[in-house]
């Protein structure tokens, strides 16, 4: 399979990237290229220009940003999952990133690319949503910050305009929280049938606070707010968390596809949310 012809630009900085994008008719931004290249090869994408962000070293790496971690959009999955600051402050992101695809893909694929691609079966959007990550976007009108709850609009669709570049994602430092990403797939390398990103803050033996994002339970990642509420004040016991997770599929609209029908996904969301909460709570 061979891509159709396109021009190729590798800008040196964000400003140039934004300028180039503004000049193109139908550009495609390439981050790690691990989702885009297959699309190009199947000729499902016909960009006139591919704007490769791999030259933007400024978008690579993790920095301390006060009460948040700033993860550059071009930081590879491999870098994210090995980063000591991510491990210390935002282990949910590290855990979920370790389940993305396979080692070779993780060497190329990037956090920003995965989030901007916005595949609801991808593992990272649910994490970003659960943690209320902030998306730093540069566009023709300058820089802006978008909340995770607004970022994901629909299947493979985000608030990013054609001329926008996602530059970084800011995750809260999760001091005092513990977390677990529970991924359920048909085979190791496959996309999640359902995934659950869960973080809990315990107060003594009870759950003080919980955050839950669901992977592949709709056209966007979904926040299981009902379960988050139901968890509050619940004893940190497997049976109680399991009970609290019974509403995990409320308000979701899971897809029917080759791997699973919607009713099975709903069931899995409930079971896996219970398990993810228990694992996060260490019980």
């Amino acid at each position, binding site marked *: 399979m061979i891509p159709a012809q396109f021009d190729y630009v590798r800008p040196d900085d964000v400003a140039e990237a934004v300028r180039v994008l503004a000049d193109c008719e139908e550009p495609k931004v390439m981050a790690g290229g691990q989702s885009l290249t297959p699309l190009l090869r199947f*000729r499902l994408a016909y960009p006139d220009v591919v704007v490769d962000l791999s030259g933007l070293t400024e978008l690579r790496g993790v920095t301390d940003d006060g009460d948040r971690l700033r993860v550059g959009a071009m930081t590879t999955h491999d870098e994210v999952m090995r980063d000591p600051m991510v491990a210390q402050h935002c282990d949910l992101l590290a855990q979920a990133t370790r389940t993305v695809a396979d080692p070779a893909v993780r060497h190329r694929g990037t956090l920003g690319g995965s989030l901007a691609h916005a595949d609801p079966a991808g593992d990272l959007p649910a994490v970003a949503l659960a943690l209320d990550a902030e998306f730093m976007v540069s566009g023709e009108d300058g820089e802006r910050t978008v909340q995770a709850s607004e970022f994901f609009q629909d299947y493979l669709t985000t608030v990013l305009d054609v001329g926008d570049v996602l530059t970084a994602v800011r995750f809260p430092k999760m001091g005092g929280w513990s977390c677990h990403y529970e991924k359920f797939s*048909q085979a*190791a390398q496959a*996309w999640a049938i359902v995934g659950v990103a869960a973080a809990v803050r315990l107060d003594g033996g009870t759950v003080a606070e919980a955050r839950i994002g669901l992977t592949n339970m709709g056209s966007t990642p979904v926040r299981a707010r009902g379960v988050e509420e139901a968890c509050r004040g619940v004893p940190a016991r497997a049976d109680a968390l399991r009970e609290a997770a019974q509403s995990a599929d409320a308000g979701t609209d899971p897809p029917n596809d*080759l791997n699973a029908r919607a009713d*099975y996904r709903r069931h*899995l969301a409930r079971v*896996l949310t219970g398990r993810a909460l228990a694992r996060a709570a260490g019980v």
Partner: protein
Amino acid sequence: MTTAPEAPRTDQVGSPRLRKEDARLITGQTNWTDNIQQTGMLHVAFLRSPHAHARIVAVDTSAAMQQPGVTAAFSGADFAEEQGSLPCAWPVTEDMALPEHPPMAVDEVRYVGEAVACVVARDAYAAADALEAVDVEYEPLPAVVDMEAALAEDSPLVHAGSGQGQGRNKAFVWPFTAGDVDTAFGGADIVLNRRYHQQRLIPAAMEPRSVVCRPEGDSFTLWSATQVPHILRLMLAMTTGVPEHKLRVIAPDVGGGFGSKLQVTAEEVLALLLARRLRKPVKWTETRTEGFQTTHHGRDQIQDISIAADADGRIRGLKVDLLADMGAYMMLVTPGVPVLGAFMFPGIYKMDAYSFSCTGVFTTKMPTDAYRGAGRPEATYGIERIMTELADEIGMDPMELRRRNWIRHEEFPHTGVAGLTYDSGNYEAATDRATELFDYDGLRAEQRRRRDSGDPVQLGIGISTYTEMCGLAPSRVLGQLSYGAGGWENASVRMLPTGKVEVVTGSCAHGQGHATAWSQIAADRLGVPFEDVEVLHGDTRVSPKGMDTYGSRSLVVGGTAVVEACDRVVEKARRMAAHMMEADEGDLEFTAGRFTVRGTERPATTMQEVALAAFAAHDLPEGAEASLDADSTFDPENFSFPHGTHLCAVEVDTETGEVDIRAYTAVDDVGTVVNPLIVDGQVHGGLAQGIAQALYEEAVHDADGNLLTSTMADYTVPTAADLPDFTTDRTVTPSTTNPLGAKGVGEAGTIASTPAVVNAVVDALRPFGVRDLRMPCTPQRVWRAIAEAREAERSEGGQR
């Protein structure tokens, strides 16, 4: 110079020699067809039908011709006069439907992916671009996707019209009966009826298909990623009219086949025709999606099986009624695959009567054909599943039921109800070894504990005690089954003047390690070092006679031909040596490559010395020729029958439906082992493919006939992370049908493992009332089976 013989060895057979093939494969010095470059070579891309069924109204290639780098573009109509019809070598019945199968569709397309046009360009990139400029107008026709619906009176026809095979979707009915089935069933205490599905599979060899064809005057050299260069040459000659002797077919390094490269494909025919028309070398290599859509598929049967037994478990009779999905056309052995299964449904069991019927059905999907096991895995699945269900029905341990019915060791040779004579076997020994390695009793105890405690993770134990027919095949049997060729194999042995040896074989390895195993055989027979043997194969000009590699036949048939050819060399050398040693031929002993005169201390004459003397030819025995070379064409008298006992333990998470293989033990009896390393490897790979059918793989079509699993992202070929380690061992009961005592091992693991795994999953779920699961047993299917069984239990409870 002769090579001074090393310490004489005749123990190569049976030793785990490291493979000769590896040296180039681990260093990237490979010769895959797609690696082949020719000066001036053009690249071919095919435009393929997006419809499962449509009339071709018009094909316009003119815009494609205007694209940069494009040499030519053709529609099927452009080749209508010369492309012929792709061959089917196995018309299983006289009235079998055999519709025309043009390599490039001319009037009608009958599956998604069927080629309708092609572009020939300076490179693959230009060809891919130009393909988008080809314009085809279709008039869609109704797709025929479901086999049972295809047989309905009012079903649309895959092949309308009035020629042979047209006007009906039922392609053939092939019946077989042995014994008095009515009496067997009428007198039985228990009759169990079951319907099992063999899902459609995609063979998915790692190397995509590829073909290169170079014209040379009126001759052609064609390289192809094929298992069957000899069959391919013959069939290309018959299809295109290019004379056989003007056609050289080479199978260079071939990256796996599993049956999928036992085929004569549209692209191979068209590469030849394009090279002939354009007078330039051409290359075509499939993309993975092209491969999934248009390299033949495997399995795809609905099996209605009835078994009749006494209350004590003795089997009285078996009835099998198959529907087999042919797909849209009959390819090389499409109809023969399910028919081959007819002989295997009775498995290792004795019974009074047996009937079998196979109905071949056309649908608008890619044709099915041989896939690892070809008919035998399907049959083994049917019998091993229903035996397990029968055991449950009469409340007997499933292994005990098998013991009561299998052919006992002392009963061999045994002619079974399907008419095959099983020459040897020891099911007791393999089973005893397997149950010991597996800790069968211990796992059963754990299973009881988990059932009693209501553990959400249940344990299931599956058994498969299988046999298969290998060593395809006695030519007379193939003749009786209407197969178009014989089942012999050829080998020739060339003694070079320096004492080195070339073994030329008609078998055609594509991963099986023949270069190593054949070297071991020849080294022992000729008494020369293993390293002094070179195995030549896969080129019709180097190895002109052959029947190629499939059906676990190569060692049993081709290896025997090597043995016979070597023995003939030794006999010629014996005469020569006697002459050299001025001794009587009858007084010569031949051991480990050395001729000695019995009862004397005279120095030995080595094989290498004889080879040099034969080459020099200064002083030959009266009437002898100046050559030690010999060949053999071996035609087996009977099949060989590997067997074994496979045991699988699965853990099933009843909350999610996830199945995890906790232990897998395979004890196989493949007869005499030439190379245990290679045999173990074949078993491992076979297990992986059989387990993949049980748990992972399925070619899924939508109602319009589109293949939904057309990429490796959708069709789940398991990776290392998805499969367990295996415990393997062997018993050795040599075959009596060939001098090596070998039985074949290429398909055993695949045949045995699928029912072992599914039996284990069903066993885990039996307490819930689950009695069957469709393959692959995906988490969703397992969960749904539990949910439905619980629902059924609830509603039954409610009625009470």
